[in-house]
């Protein structure tokens, strides 16, 4: 009698899809390998330097090393567990092919194995990528023997499996209590809020103080007294107790702790398998329950309608539709929290700059920073546009036919999408320029020039976003973050950066002349005036030509989508 499909067979669709994706674009694969290698090298160099620096602190060195390792392990463990909970929700309960597998003669145990493996790989590769160079740096700096590397690899793999098992157990428990879509929404929002909060906290702690030697000593004292959870019952403690003795820092019992980690991981895996085998059908059935709520939806539409009232009919309709969809999708609106954190930190950075002592050096510095601010604000807008503008076309998804079959010209459609993206980005960009200009004491005329330049740049960036979004559409996914990280998103970002660089290069000299003219008694010569005029015209021409070419490209690609 057949024992049912093998694990390899169940994983084949994912493996084959990955292989086909690589075969389709060899260039992408090479680019991916190059970026990964650079990331690895960067991580390794950074940690090697940090650890070598710690070694120079003779008295505290070993303690700092240990604390840092515990901190890293605790962070990995927390990130991995959250990541596994989110991933398991999709792979076990929301993926479209689960229905197909449930109908097939596949045992629950085998189903668990396949989905567990998928969850493990999908949520762990990033941490593994980051973690291995860290452990490698530890080994190199402390000249550890081969046993350390083997133990580090084993510890890492055991931690990954343990977190995946915990993730599956927590997810299954949550799905049994709450509908899966609500659970996913809540998890997404909590995760994004944690990241945004962590980012803001980290910045507001003023890490630049650490450049001051006296502050550095304070930081070390903090690290030394860092109360990382170090209970003897925590897997991260066992992991640290495996690795630290093998670094030769102090004695210990690594084998015992490896045994603890191994047996706990095995028990957790078996517990997740047992739980899924027992309650999977019940949990999956619960996950299929849709969200039914009355009354609340009308309120959102009623709130949005006056907002769209001043717009032309079609633009208003698309605005209400796009915003309704946006605010009902937690994975989309929660990104606003990150954006808010970004804006707060950006403005805070400028408020904290020490450039107000009135010396000539400070004046020069202020000019440089004010001009760099234009480039930085444009960069922030480009980064936000990659996440919010580039996916706009793809997010219409397979429902694109509704717009194409409607009596709506592609030009009107483009203008609607353009205004919906341009207005909020322009408001955001101009606020950044004006508020930070205030902190820097930039003259109003200069701020006006920056505002005009940024408005032109934002128009071009939005137009490019629609063009690249239409040229590289991903109509099969509703995950905007996934859309933005695709090949087209990367090319779009690079194009935006090139555009910003050209504009900054064109404007640097005239801005500098106008700035110093404030302090010089002599007038700007006729020749210089002409050159300044040409440079500013150059900025207008470059941005407007980019805008127009991108617009034409976008409309041409719109026509091909259907």
């Amino acid at each position, binding site marked *: 009698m057949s024992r049912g499909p093998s694990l390899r067979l169940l994983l084949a669709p994912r493996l084959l899809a990955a292989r086909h994706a690589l075969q389709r674009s060899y260039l992408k694969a090479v680019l991916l390998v190059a970026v990964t290698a650079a990331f690895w090298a960067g991580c390794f160099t950074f940690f090697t330097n940090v650890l070598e620096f710690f070694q120079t602190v003779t008295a505290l060195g070993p303690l700092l090393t240990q604390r840092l390792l515990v901190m890293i392990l605790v962070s990995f463990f927390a990130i991995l567990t959250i990541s596994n909970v989110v991933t398991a929700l999709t792979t076990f309960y929301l993926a479209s092919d689960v229905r197909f597998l449930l109908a097939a003669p596949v045992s629950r145990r085998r189903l668990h194995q396949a989905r567990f493996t998928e969850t493990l790989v999908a949520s762990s590769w990033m941490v593994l990528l980051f973690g291995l160079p860290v452990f490698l740096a530890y080994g190199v700096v402390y000249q550890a023997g081969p046993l350390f590397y083997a133990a580090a690899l084993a510890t890492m793999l055991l931690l990954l499996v343990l977190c995946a098992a915990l993730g599956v157990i927590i997810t299954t428990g949550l799905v049994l209590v709450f509908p899966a879509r609500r659970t996913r929404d809540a998890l997404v929002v909590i995760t994004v809020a944690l990241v945004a909060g962590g980012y803001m906290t980290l910045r507001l702690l003023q890490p630049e103080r650490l450049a001051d030697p006296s502050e550095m000593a304070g930081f070390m004292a903090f690290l030394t007294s860092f109360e990382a959870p170090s209970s003897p019952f925590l897997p991260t403690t066992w992991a640290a107790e495996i690795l630290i003795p093998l670094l030769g820092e102090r004695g210990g019992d690594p084998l015992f702790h490896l045994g603890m980690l191994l047996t706990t991981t095995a028990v957790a895996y078996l517990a997740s398998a047992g739980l899924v085998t027992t309650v999977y059908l019940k949990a999956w059935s619960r996950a299929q329950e*849709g*969200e*039914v709520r*009355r*009354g609340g*939806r*009308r309120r959102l*539409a009623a709130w949005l309608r006056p907002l769209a009232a001043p717009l032309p*009919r*079609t633009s*208003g*309709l698309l605005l*209400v*539709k796009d915003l*309704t*969809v946006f605010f*009902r*999708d937690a994975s989309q609106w929660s990104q606003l929290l990150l954006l808010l954190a970004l804006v707060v930190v950006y403005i805070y950075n400028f408020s904290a700059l020490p450039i107000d002592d009135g010396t000539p050096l400070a004046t020069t510095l202020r000019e440089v920073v004010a001009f760099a601010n234009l480039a930085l604000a444009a960069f922030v807008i480009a980064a936000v546009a990659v996440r919010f503008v580039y996916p706009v076309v793809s997010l219409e*998804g*397979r*429902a694109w*036919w*509704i*717009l*194409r*079959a*409607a*009596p*709506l*010209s592609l030009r009107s459609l483009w203008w609607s999408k353009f205004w919906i993206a341009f207005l909020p980005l322009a408001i955001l960009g101009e606020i950044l320029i004006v508020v930070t200009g205030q902190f820097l004491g930039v003259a109003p005329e200069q701020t006006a020039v920056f505002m005009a330049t940024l408005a032109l740049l934002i128009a071009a960036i939005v137009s490019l976003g629609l063009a690249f979004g239409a040229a590289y559409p991903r109509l099969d996914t*509703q995950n905007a973050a996934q859309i933005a990280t695709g090949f087209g998103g990367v090319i779009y970002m690079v194009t935006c950066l090139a555009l910003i660089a050209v504009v900054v290069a064109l404007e640097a000299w005239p801005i500098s002349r106008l700035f110093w003219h404030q302090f010089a008694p002599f007038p700007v010569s006729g020749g210089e005036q002409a050159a300044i005029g040409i440079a500013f015209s150059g900025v207008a021409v470059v941005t407007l030509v980019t805008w127009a070419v991108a617009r034409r490209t976008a409309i041409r690609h719109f*026509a*091909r989508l*259907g």
Partner: protein
Amino acid sequence: MIEFVGLRKDFGPSTVVEELDLVIPAGEIFGFLGPNGAGKTTTIKMMMGVLEPTAGTVILDGHDIATAPEEAKAQTGYVPDQPALYDKLTGMEFLRFVGGLYGLERGEIDERAHDLLEEFDMLTREEELIETYSHGMKQRLTLAAALMHRPRILVLDEPMVGLDPQGGLELRQILLALAASGVTVFLSTHSLSVAEELCDRIGILDAGRLIALGSLDELQSRAALRPETAPLDASLESVFLRLTAMEDHA
């Protein structure tokens, strides 16, 4: 009225639709049949201005889809084979959106949407997100959306897929009523019984070519001329099999 004028579509070296010339008068229910991959959906997409033809055009109620697409689309309702909708909108919100796209007055939109939801037995779920609807419900909502602006032409690509028997019966009654009121119905279907029951004329597309055109009687007469290809009885199914088999042999 619908008029296909030399409509052709090439995908690279292969021709998917070959020089289609066809006139469908107002008030007719026209059945568009053909085996899988014959080019039916491609033809419909070109007809709706969703796909650009390689050559030729389609004239919908006097408006050329190539030169006056907005006017042509304003007269037409479209139900695609895969009714992908906006999952995060409710049924009512979706109909309001579509009503707005087709230029209905604000006051008229709610009334029309309400009537259509009632007609398609979806009023109780109008405030639920589309993502919670079954395939059949999405199909009915797409039909309701296609009828929001009272089109002069209705184009349906496999509309019976996903409908329960009651839904199928209601759709047939609606199509007959629309045709009686002068609406031209262009119906692509695999359901030969539906085509047999509803259609005034039938066109059979095979490998991109219109191989047969006429009423059921006319098609039966034509199929009877080639008795060696397949057994023939009075049904459209038998006519369809014989005519497409004739093409394969040719």
